[in-house]
């Protein structure tokens, strides 16, 4: 039960990046992604600088490189898609390793790969250095509507509840002699899955009511101060600012 724990997304640490207020980091990442997307794809140098910038952040935040790489598997479908484009793409053709590939297709593939990868790494760094709950509080400070933030908070909580209920149900099944080995056992899982939704909901509902009965009125009480200083804004926004300058310089 409870919120904010057990999210392996977040790597606790005490770096400059970790300590930045979440709203600064969020805005920085968004701005950075926008600059990246807006950069014309033939500016190879600009993309190289963007990658170096992110590498700098990785070092500053002391996020282990293998962790970043592991999380990048989320990209795989798009990598596949990107490799597919030159094959089915239109326009002028060129021959690489005996394959006839579309030149605009190659450009498109490079475009998607480069921009998607930079975006993914930026997001991974944000999530790795900021607790999920805090990211949401930051989003709220950036004027994301309160109701959305609340829904997202509850979503995180319920993900825990669902995982928790799933774990409880698995232990209960196993301790009564059940081991899911093959397809014949799918119906059992499916039957208990129906109960899972309602169980999770009702557990969450009771917790919500418990919160209400302790004076919750839709706003998490702010127990820790979250305001950002000008310096912190400056530190965070350095990333998109340098990126923007790079874009301008490689014009």
């Amino acid at each position, binding site marked *: *039960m*409870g*919120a*904010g*724990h057990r999210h392996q997304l977040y790597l606790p640490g005490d770096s400059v990046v970790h300590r930045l207020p979440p709203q600064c980091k969020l805005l920085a990442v968004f701005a950075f992604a926008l600059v990246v997307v807006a950069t014309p794809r033939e500016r190879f140098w600009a993309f190289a600088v963007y990658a170096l910038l992110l590498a700098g952040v990785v070092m500053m935040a002391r996020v282990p490189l293998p962790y970043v790489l592991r999380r990048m598997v989320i990209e795989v479908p798009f990598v596949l898609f990107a490799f597919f484009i030159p094959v089915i793409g239109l326009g002028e053709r060129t021959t690489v390793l005996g394959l006839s590939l579309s030149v605009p297709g190659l450009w498109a593939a490079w475009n998607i790969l480069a921009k998607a990868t930079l975006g993914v790494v930026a997001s991974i760094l944000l999530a790795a250095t900021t607790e999920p*709950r805090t990211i949401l509080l930051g989003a709220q400070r950036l004027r994301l509507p309160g109701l959305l933030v609340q829904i997202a908070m509850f979503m995180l*909580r319920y993900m825990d509840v669902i995982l*928790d209920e799933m774990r409880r149900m698995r232990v209960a099944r196993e301790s009564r002699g059940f081991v899911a080995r093959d397809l014949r056992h799918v119906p059992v899982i499916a039957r208990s899955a129906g109960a899972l939704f309602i169980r999770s909901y009702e*557990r969450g509902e*009771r*917790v919500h*009511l*418990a*919160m*209400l*009965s*302790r*004076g*919750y*009125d839709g706003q998490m*009480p702010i*127990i820790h101060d979250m305001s950002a200083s000008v310096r912190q804004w400056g530190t965070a926004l350095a990333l998109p600012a340098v990126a923007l300058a790079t874009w301008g310089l490689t014009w």
Partner: protein
Amino acid sequence: MGTDVVNSLEVRQLAYAYPDGTQALFGVDLSIARGERVALLGPNGAGKTTLVMHLNGILTAGHGSVSVAGTPVRKDTLKEIRQRVGLVFQDPDDQLFMPTVRDDVAFGPANAGLRGAELDRVVEDALERVGMLAAADRPPHHLSFGQRRRVAVATVLAMAPEILVLDEPSSNLDPAARRELAEILRSLDVTVLMVTHDLPYALELCERSLILSGGVIAADGPTRELLADSELLAEHRLELPYGFAIPAV
């Protein structure tokens, strides 16, 4: 039992059915005066938890009315009602939701506006009382069941409510904690309604008892008298435990 105004809790003809159609309460009437400590007894499935959930507006009466210190429980009074009535749930997992024990206990007072050193003091005091101060920085879901129950009590104590409603607070507590809880409750100057299956505990702590059975109040009187009436008890699946005798006054 005085006029309506001075009563801490006043329930009239309360009926309630759960969304799946199970009706749990069939017209409950009760009133509890300010400062009383009352035990709510009854068999499993009698509707005790359901009744208790109405007292701070967690469930909304299907029929009838509930009022707290003269204020009817309604949508627009809920906030005030919940400041006044502190409810300890039967299942501590329903009660604890923050990442650490300290945050969980701080949640209520922080909502009421406490901050800083004052907040810390209140939180540590409440944890101290239930003997869980050492676990303040652990996540509640990593505690033993009895430890979680104690923290659940602390979350409510920290809010200093006028009316304390406890749903089987002594279950899963070790014997010393059970006695300490009794001492805490006795030391507070609040109205207490306590659901329990532990009849000796009810006798020890509450002058008056109610028996809820089949969704209606079946008996209401001094605990000592009710517990002495073994026929009444048997009718409602209650009985004194082995080895227990009602002590002479």
